[in-house]
């Protein structure tokens, strides 16, 4: 039986501006939202959102400190709960990152995170609005224009097999902008800060999950 209003849990692990994500979600869909670092909320939610800005190491450290690393792993892998990861959140989904020495991520999607190696005229961080190329026009991008602009701000990016890549972007070379595998969707850009395109993407995502609940 489908539930009318999904419960979304934005995972609060001390990394970044959760308010932006809340503001955007409040604007897009009717739902129950919680911002939490408590296991019971992760348990009872239909959708998990893993946001994040900051450095990879701190993020993993904070998750472990709050005893959320294994809990999240269980929710996503064993319970197959839908997860949307944003920016640093997307990077955490991978096996490892070279940021701050080599660090281990969740490893839910095979691949690594490396620093931009673009030619000199490309400044790092990659900061601002850039257009993505959607590789797989599924429900997520319904109603969104061709080559849509989204807001990026990052110095590292994900490298993974192209079977998982749903959108790419070009900054000196092509890099991964969005990935999907089973119940996991992740964006390098910030939908919550990408005005119309971003709000529509968030709405599409929630609607696609609602249909499955």
């Amino acid at each position: 039986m489908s539930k009318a209003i999904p419960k979304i849990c934005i995972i609060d692990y001390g990394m970044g501006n959760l308010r932006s994500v809340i503001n955007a979600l409040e604007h897009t869909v009717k739902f129950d939202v919680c911002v939490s670092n408590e296991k019971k909320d992760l348990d009872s939610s239909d959708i998990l959102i893993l946001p994040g800005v900051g450095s990879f190491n701190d993020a993993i450290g904070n998750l472990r400190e709050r005893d959320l690393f294994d809990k999240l792993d269980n929710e996503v892998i064993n319970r197959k709960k839908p997860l949307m990861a944003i920016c640093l959140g997307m990077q955490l989904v991978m096996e490892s990152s070279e940021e701050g020495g080599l660090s281990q991520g969740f490893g839910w999607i095979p691949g690594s995170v490396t620093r931009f190696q673009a030619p000199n005229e490309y400044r790092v961080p990659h900061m601002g609005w850039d257009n993505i190329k959607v590789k797989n026009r599924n429900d997520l991008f319904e109603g969104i224009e061709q080559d849509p602009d989204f807001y990026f701000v990052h110095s590292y990016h994900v490298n993974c097999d192209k079977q998982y890549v749903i959108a790419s972007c070009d900054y000196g070379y092509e890099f991964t902008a969005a990935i999907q595998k089973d119940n996991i969707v992740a964006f390098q850009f910030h939908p919550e800060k990408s005005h119309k395109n971003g709000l529509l993407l968030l709405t599409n995502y929630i609607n696609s999950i609602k249909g499955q609940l």
Partner: protein
Amino acid sequence: MLKNRLIPVIIVKDKLIVQSFNFKRFLPIGKIKTAIEFFVNWDVDEIIILDIDATKQERGPQLEVIEWASRECFVPLTVGGGIRSIENIKDVLRAGADKISINSYAVENPQFITDAAIRFGNQCITVSIDTMKVSNDYNVFIRNGKIDTGIKVSDWVKKLERLGAGEILINSIERDGSREGYDLELLNLISSNVNIPVVACGGVGDMRHLASGITEGHCQAVAAANIFQHTEHSTIAAKAMMNKLGAQVRLSSDVKYENFNFDHFGRPV
């Protein structure tokens, strides 16, 4: 490709938006929330809010202002004024800011830039610089342009990049409120000395000036305050003009002014 950004700066004094003239005279013009709602729908790429009273009054950022300002702000929001601790940054981000801007305190305590960048990531830390030519060099000024630190701006920006700043917001004190256009010599000096994004600010009096910050000043983003505050659709007109003059911008508004000409004030006609 990565677009050149257009950023309105909302200068706040006593919780009202003001226009600034050479950092000396301030004309109150309206409410912050109204301005943000308009700007977001007028195709701006980011918004900067600078609270120019905070350092002077020795107080921290006004969190309730940021909280309601961010509610309808679906583009990145940078907040500056009164940030002097990691705790301040945490509070400001929690209230809804995406980036923070530091000015005087970066000079007083450079190590803070590094600490903040490690904690929140480089991309979160914008350093704002007020500068003016003293004899033949541009010097860094602090405390709303009142104190000359004697530091050369070209040395300062290189140091800031090493310390971990993610972006530079460069403001010319002499051009502030002058409507003469950006100081292109200054912009080139900054953009050629660092490899992080540079945002131009100070002196825009005509929408054509915005494009010059990109095409001649070689900055990655252009900011202005006063010019956007009095004209309907001002930022959309600005983007149409930038596009026409060869600066690649994001055009997402339903109104685009693609086939219009612009009058002396940059208004579409």
